């Protein structure tokens, strides 16, 4: 095992574990802000209790996100010193901006919201919730600026043996920033909506359908539908951007080995490999990739054959994670469609079958998000900066393989413990349930 491979594994471990939590944070912050707005405008106690309940879950999730996020801020320097020297002129700025514009806002106002509720007015409480949401969203924006620059670098020149910034705004709004920011945000909202709807469903299933459970179920269901639609729209936009700006990645995502006009859309297939599609039947729609990517059924789409083999991403991982993400996205769309249908029919609170489905659907958005990031990051390989710097050239020379292996082992243990505690405490808070006015009203 060489140091580069280990460093990549360490990054995969820390970033994938970390990103279990921020989507819930970013999405729940929005839903809590909606509840807080209703509370502030109506003065109704049920919104106060709903907001209190979701804030408890938010707090447990947030702190694990923060704790695992610290590792990310320093890991570029520890494991990727070569990369840091090469791109520091560009890449550090969004990280610093994230601190200045996002983390201070988010953490400061969350402290006020969680522990200072008795010390602030109704308006300031609302403001604090909205600032937490704004902070978490801005944090998502700046980190996507940084990551998108690795995907589609812009606004720089190669000078003095490194990438130097020449146009700040071109680097910030590089070709993939906005499509990826929109898609990531929408998926975070899906994540929190499914959590909210699923938890509320569980309360109903357990005969604990209080007023808080009712508004949570309604808000969760409507938000799930709206945000799943947005994920679809932004996902389509993002995929077209990849087709235009990262052709090899797009070819791997779609499993296209040969360049052709009128490229098919492969729906289902056994895993492909670096040698080609498996020798087994696939289900595909002819010419659909050409249409989806370029709006023309006859448009030529670059296959992997246009690129030297050492520039290919790992096809199997990219293809499978992308396809499974899309499949999950469609499952979630169907589920949330069913949800708004039941809502319109007034059967949301009585359909136990739907509630059971939503309970089991809680992890789906998280799985889809992880798969999406695997497609995004594996599809970027073998580049750490797309078509500019290879991943193998970015690694720290001063860090030896055994040191990385040791810290992978250390952090695996810590993350196992942390993940278990997170799950345990979330379940405990959920089981404890929201504060009810009378014991089990509405059950």
């Amino acid at each position, binding site marked *: 095992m060489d140091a580069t491979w280990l460093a990549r594994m360490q990054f995969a471990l820390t970033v994938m574990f970390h990103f279990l939590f921020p989507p819930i944070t970013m999405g729940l912050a929005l839903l809590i802000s909606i509840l807080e707005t209703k509370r502030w405008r109506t003065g109704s106690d049920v919104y106060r209790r709903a907001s209190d309940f979701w804030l408890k879950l938010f707090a*447990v999730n947030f*702190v694990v996100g*923060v*704790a695992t996020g*610290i*590792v990310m*801020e*320093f890991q*570029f*320097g*520890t*494991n990727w*010193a*070569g990369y*840091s*020297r090469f791109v*520091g*002129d*560009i*890449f*550090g*700025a969004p*990280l*610093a*901006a*994230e*601190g*200045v*514009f996002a*983390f*201070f*806002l988010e*953490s*400061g*106002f969350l*402290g*006020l919201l*969680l*522990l*200072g509720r*008795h*010390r602030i007015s109704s308006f300031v409480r609302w403001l604090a919730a909205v600032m937490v949401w704004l902070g978490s969203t801005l944090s998502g924006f700046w980190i996507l600026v940084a990551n998108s620059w690795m995907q589609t670098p812009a606004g720089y020149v190669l*000078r003095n043996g490194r990438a*130097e*910034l020449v146009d700040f705004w071109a680097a910030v709004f590089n070709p993939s920033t906005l499509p990826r920011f929109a898609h990531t945000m929408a998926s975070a909202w899906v994540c929190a909506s499914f959590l909210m709807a699923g938890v509320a469903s569980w309360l109903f299933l357990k005969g604990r359908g209080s007023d808080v459970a009712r508004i949570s179920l309604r808000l969760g269901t409507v938000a799930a539908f709206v945000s799943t639609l947005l994920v679809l729209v932004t996902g389509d936009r993002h995929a077209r951007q990849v087709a235009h700006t990262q052709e090899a990645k797009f070819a791997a995502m779609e499993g296209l080995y040969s360049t052709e006009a009128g490229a098919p859309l492969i729906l289902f297939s056994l895993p492909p490999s670096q040698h080609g599609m498996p020798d087994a039947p696939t289900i595909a729609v002819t010419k659909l990739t050409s249409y989806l990517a370029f709006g023309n059924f006859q448009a030529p789409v670059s296959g992997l054959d246009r690129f030297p083999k050492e520039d290919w991403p790992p096809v199997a991982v990219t293809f499978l994670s992308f396809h499974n993400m899309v499949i999950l996205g469609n499952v979630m769309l169907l589920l949330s469609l069913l949800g708004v249908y039941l809502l319109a029919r007034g059967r949301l609170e009585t359909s136990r079958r739907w509630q059971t489905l939503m309970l089991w659907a809680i992890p789906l958005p998280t799985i889809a998000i992880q798969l999406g990031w695997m497609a995004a990051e594996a599809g970027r390989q073998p580049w750490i900066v797309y078509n500019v710097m290879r991943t193998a050239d970015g690694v*720290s*020379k*001063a*860090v030896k393989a055994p*040191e990385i292996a*040791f*810290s992978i082992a*250390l*952090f695996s243990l*810590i993350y196992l413990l*942390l993940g278990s*505690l997170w799950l345990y*405490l979330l379940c*405990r*808070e959920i089981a404890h349930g929201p504060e009810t006015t009378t014991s089990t009203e509405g059950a």
Partner: protein
Amino acid sequence: MLDLQTTWFLLIGVLLVGYAILDGFDLGVGLLHLFVARTDRERRIVVNAVGPVWDGNEVWLLTGGGALFAAFPGVYATVFSAFYLALMLVLAALIFRAVSLEFRSKLESPRWRGSWDWAFAVGSGLPALLFGVAVGNVLRGLPMDAAGDYTGTFAALLNPFSLLVGLLSTSMFLMQGSAWLLLKTEGEVAARTRRIALPAWGAFTLLWIASTVAARWAAPAAWAPYSEGLPWLAPIVLVVALVSFPLALRSGRKGLTLTASSSAIAALMAVLGQGLYPYVVPALGEGTLSLSIYTASSSPYTLEAMLVIALIGMPVVLGYTLFIYSRFRGPVVLDDHSY
């Protein structure tokens, strides 16, 4: 007129001073936690003394790290890869520090709470020590090659001078933590804290003198600036702050005690900064390889862009941070939302 590189050297210094003062008291409170609070109620008071603000305080470190990456990528890359294992330990400790505060109150069980009390203490103590060890190594200089990659070992980082500076930072955070706790607690907890504050101050003072003397051999460059007048300001402020601390403590002026301790921290870091300038990381042995603010910096365009970000962002940050602190003014009062 300050050039851009010097400006950023100063600004990152400001961020790190902000971190050392603010998260400094969090770390110190963590160190004191097991000793000054015995009952669960006392421990809850101590945890809540930092509960609402520790996370925002830690952001000073994250932002400092980001700004270092942005302004001096060469330094960020060299230092963090050199301190790989040490930094991993710090990160692991900070993870436990973070969750211990949030998780502690979730269960009533004494074993559960006791475990998180330990996690809070160790998660604070380890960074408090290792931050100083890191600073000591930077002052001494790091063995590195022409590419700026560290060529030493992990064990070599634990040299006597750096360990001495590690003890200095530990006592500094202890002093700062006790000054903060005095402001936030009453009764028994405050009485026990007061008994620790003076020895912490004494240890800090002695260790500062000891490391200053040791630096004469271990880090002679740190002694260089004092042929001129202006650099004397920082050590003078440090001495004034150190003289004021026990006087303020004895007269019961808590705000002044915290101010003295915070000023001592800021002044000590200024002493370190001017001892390094214009280098950020001297190369041990081979002086020509040293990373200076000019050889390891980003392009002027990036430094300017970052300056705009800092000038727009930081005044706003300071504004609402002050507001939030003002909401939590005075000794801790436990309510149903407290940890």
